[in-house]
């Protein structure tokens, strides 16, 4: 096996997780937990793929995927922000609704055949760098590069700009933010919407770049939930989220590749496709999320950096938080 190839594929696979996780970080930093990531990703995936199939234009697919994710996220926003409903249940509802709707609209799409995909690029110079060049900059989908740009931008936006300060204020102490004249509701809507846009983009990343095609709920296969888990591991930082996303992307690629080889270290490969031990291999990413969330929770407790203080609680002007 060529490890730089696996890593390069892992980066591509991780890009979908990255978009979804960074989107969720924006929403949660504003104080709104949105557990509907899986549903929004599926909606984005189906919207992007069907648009690309019917128009032949994958870029239009990306735009529609993002809009679909954003619009459907507003449902959660209204219910969680204005109607003050329980964010856990509302997020779950969004996942049910998104998966159901995606299957309804995706009916027959699995036989749609090949469609035009997003272009792949090789960055001149950078791809020549030993080892790293082949992993990060050789023949990657254009969306992978969007991911590279998004991470530092998101970090800078949250930690170093004035709007980012407002974002954090709304998530940590909405009453104080409100007193400062910051529109709590307005910002929360905006960042839930941004989370939806990015979840939709994550869906399109899968269907239009990383593993093209529509396979019903198997298209995301729990990756939206993995992204939600990564946010806890990342302690709400885009940089750590990027590390987690690429790590998980690489692991899930590695799992697929391991199933394709006949022998490991001279012995028969027990994980070869079709052998029953593969199922233990398939468990690995999900078990790792549990492990990673445990580590994240422990570390957060020790360093006293936790979730945004107002995460999950609706803000009502003039009322003390429950």
């Amino acid at each position, binding site marked *: 096996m060529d490890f730089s190839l696996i890593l390069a594929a892992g980066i591509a696979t991780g890009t979908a997780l990255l978009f979804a996780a960074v989107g969720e970080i924006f929403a949660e930093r504003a104080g709104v937990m949105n557990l509907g990531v899986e549903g929004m990703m599926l909606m984005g995936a189906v919207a992007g793929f069907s648009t690309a199939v019917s128009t032949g234009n994958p870029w239009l697919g990306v735009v529609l995927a993002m809009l679909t994710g954003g619009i459907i996220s507003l449902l959660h926003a209204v219910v969680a922000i204005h109607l003050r409903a329980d964010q856990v249940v509302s997020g*779950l509802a969004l996942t*049910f609704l998104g998966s*159901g709707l995606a299957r309804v609209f995706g009916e027959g799409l699995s036989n749609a055949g090949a469609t035009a995909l997003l272009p792949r690029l090789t960055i001149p110079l950078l791809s020549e760098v030993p080892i790293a060049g082949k992993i990060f900059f050789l023949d990657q989908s254009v969306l992978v590069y969007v991911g590279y740009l998004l991470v530092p931008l998101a970090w800078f936006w949250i930690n170093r700009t004035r709007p980012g300060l407002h974002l954090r204020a709304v998530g940590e102490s909405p009453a104080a933010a409100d007193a400062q004249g910051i529109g709590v509701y307005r910002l929360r809507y905006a960042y839930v919407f941004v989370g939806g846009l990015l979840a939709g983009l994550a869906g399109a990343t899968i269907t239009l770049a990383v593993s093209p095609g529509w396979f019903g709920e198997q298209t995301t296969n729990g990756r939206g939930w993995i992204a*939600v888990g990564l946010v806890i591991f990342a302690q709400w930082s885009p940089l750590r989220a990027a590390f987690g996303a690429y790590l998980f992307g690489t692991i899930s690629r590695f799992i697929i590749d391991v199933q394709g080889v006949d022998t490991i270290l001279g012995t028969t490969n027990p994980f070869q496709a079709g052998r029953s031990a593969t*199922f233990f291999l398939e468990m690995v990413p999900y078990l790792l999320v*549990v492990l990673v969330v*445990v580590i994240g*929770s422990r570390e957060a407790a020790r360093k006293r950096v936790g979730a945004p203080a107002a995460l999950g609680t609706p803000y009502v002007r003039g009322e003390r938080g429950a």
Partner: protein
Amino acid sequence: MTIRLEPRVQPPGWLSAAITFAAVGVALVISGVIIAVVGGDPVRSYIHILNAAFGSIGVLSDTLVKATPLLLTGLACALAFRMRLWNIGAEGQFLLGAWGASAVVLAPILPPGTPGFIVIPTMMLAGAAAGGIWGLIPGVLRARLGVNEIITTLMLNYVALFWVQFWVFGPWSEGGFQQTAAFPPEAFLPRLTDFASSVPAFDGLTVQLGLVFGLVAAGIVWLFLERSRWGYEIRLAGDSQRAARYAGVDIARNVIVVFAISGALAGLAGMSEVSGVVHRLQDRISPGYGFTAIIIAYLARFDPFKVIVASVLFGALILAGREIQPSGVPAMIQGIILFSLIVAEVFVRYRVRIERSVAAA
């Protein structure tokens, strides 16, 4: 003009019921519009669901067969949610329960030829234990390490799925198919149709003993929640962690116990399904019972007796929905129902005031 939400001090009982019904009605209308948009015929779909689920005594029996696992997993969720523990893992606990019960006859734990009155209780115990252990893991992680239970329960669902697949494709596979050998008749839960020789009217009715497990479990969960000191602690902790802590409730211990019992109920559902319906372990024994259970628990407002009614309704949807095209429609309807229930909840908890901004005196 401004819209204000004023908390109701004591929502009247009838209002809650009326709004719940209205919410389900609105959800069905919205779903109907979407079905029409994608080219279906909503009226025919709904009439089809009613006929295919309640049209005759035979299909009613099939509806109850589908309602049985929903009832037990619905109780599992209702119990956990009552303490505001988000056990989203009933699906995995169901699968582990099915696996544990199957192990009794397939491993085998009991030698072949053991009489049914020993096999069945052993399977029940094994199923509940396996599901309970699967629930215990997120419970302990939450109670001792403060780990978010939503993520852990969800991830364990996937692990459980692969675990069952390993056994049905591997050690227990029958001739390479994705299923195990059929159980011996001693391991079957009795069905009504099994008594057709003495009561001819029962002929063809597949309702099985698992339904009774579910009804009894509903009664027991209700008794515990509403009539025991322990249930009071659970409800108190669910309403206000702080109040419960001041009252001296050992929250960590209760979290673990609730998760274990919740998992055991879902595990029993898995046992009832393999022993009473499928009669073997196979891949995809659940069309998402554990997820529908979340909506059922919410629709029933965590009341064990209302869980019974809600599980029959969703049993009907799952049974009749299988033939509706496109295939995602039942899942979509479930999502819309849950959303409209959440919105409805707002009208129960708050009085909505629409005010013209005339006098800001």
